């Protein structure tokens, strides 16, 4: 079954910057949510979110780590 790369972002406290903490391979948005929450559970996160890497739009360079449209894993 085809999987997508989802990047995981989280912050520990309300005022913290949202940081990229890793990625998961998932079937869809729903499984990505669960995999992210269960995989990166070493902290008591205030907020966590995932975004499909193919949805990330590069702004200033096309060779950045998130510009692979889902195929690259920084």
């Amino acid at each position, binding site marked *: *079954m085809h*999987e997508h790369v989802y990047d995981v972002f989280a912050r520990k406290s309300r005022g913290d910057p949202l940081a990229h903490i890793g990625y*998961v*391979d*998932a*079937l*869809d948005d*729903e*499984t990505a*949510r*669960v*995999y992210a*929450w*269960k*995989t990166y*559970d070493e902290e008591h996160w205030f907020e966590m979110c995932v975004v499909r890497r193919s949805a990330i739009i590069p702004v200033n360079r096309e060779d950045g780590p998130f510009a692979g449209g889902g195929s690259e894993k920084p």
Partner: protein
Amino acid sequence: MTEKPGPEDTTLDAPTHSALKRLVVSLADSKRLMGIRYSDWLLGAPSIETGIAASSMAQDEWGHARLLYAMLKDLGADPLEAEHTRPMEAYASVDVLDAPFGDWAAVVAGMVLADGAITVALDAFCKGSFDPACSRIPKMLAEEEFHRSLGGAWYRRLAGCGSTEATELLRGATERMLPPLLRWLTADDQIEALAAAGFTAPGDAQVAAFRDAVRDVVAGVGVDVDAVRIREDAWDPSRGRGPGHPDADAVERARGDRNRALFVE
């Protein structure tokens, strides 16, 4: 019932006290066995992320079981005895967890159906008037939301992947699990007495909640949950489940037999 029983409560009559204890043991044993069945798939799940999720869910279930067993103390019983000394014939876990899941399709069906049925029973208990349940179960239900989400997503994916084999395996597991789970949620006299006293919901309400929770998901493999007949064979009122018991290996793991000499509490 307006008074809420708690630690060292003495207001319950003997039949209600006994029924409440049976309900707690049934939920705790089911959680413990659910954790063991998830733990079987830490390795061998379809992806590393799924294995990690299975590991985490196993931890969730064992944590829930520990909290539920601890409620026995509020009912004057010894949680350690319940956790570590009972023979397998005394386990009150839901019937469909008696044997390991044979394949990933069965795990997915178990996530949606077995874990789902236990969650319905927990939710009903949480909304009743037993104080320890009201305070400790909400966190379990929040964690179960992730189990439901993962189970539903995998179920829909297998049901719609175009593989006849996957669909057949999923349908077979679903058709095997539904009748005993519906029977488990259908109240007997003890549950009806607890419902009348305000400790949980009546059986028909729990069955309806379960059907509502899984109806759309199981329709994906052509199963109409409203048409599934509730199993009507033998019933063990002392445990609130059908005849039989979990396999010996699972109970040895649940009790911690192999490390008994190292037991520290």
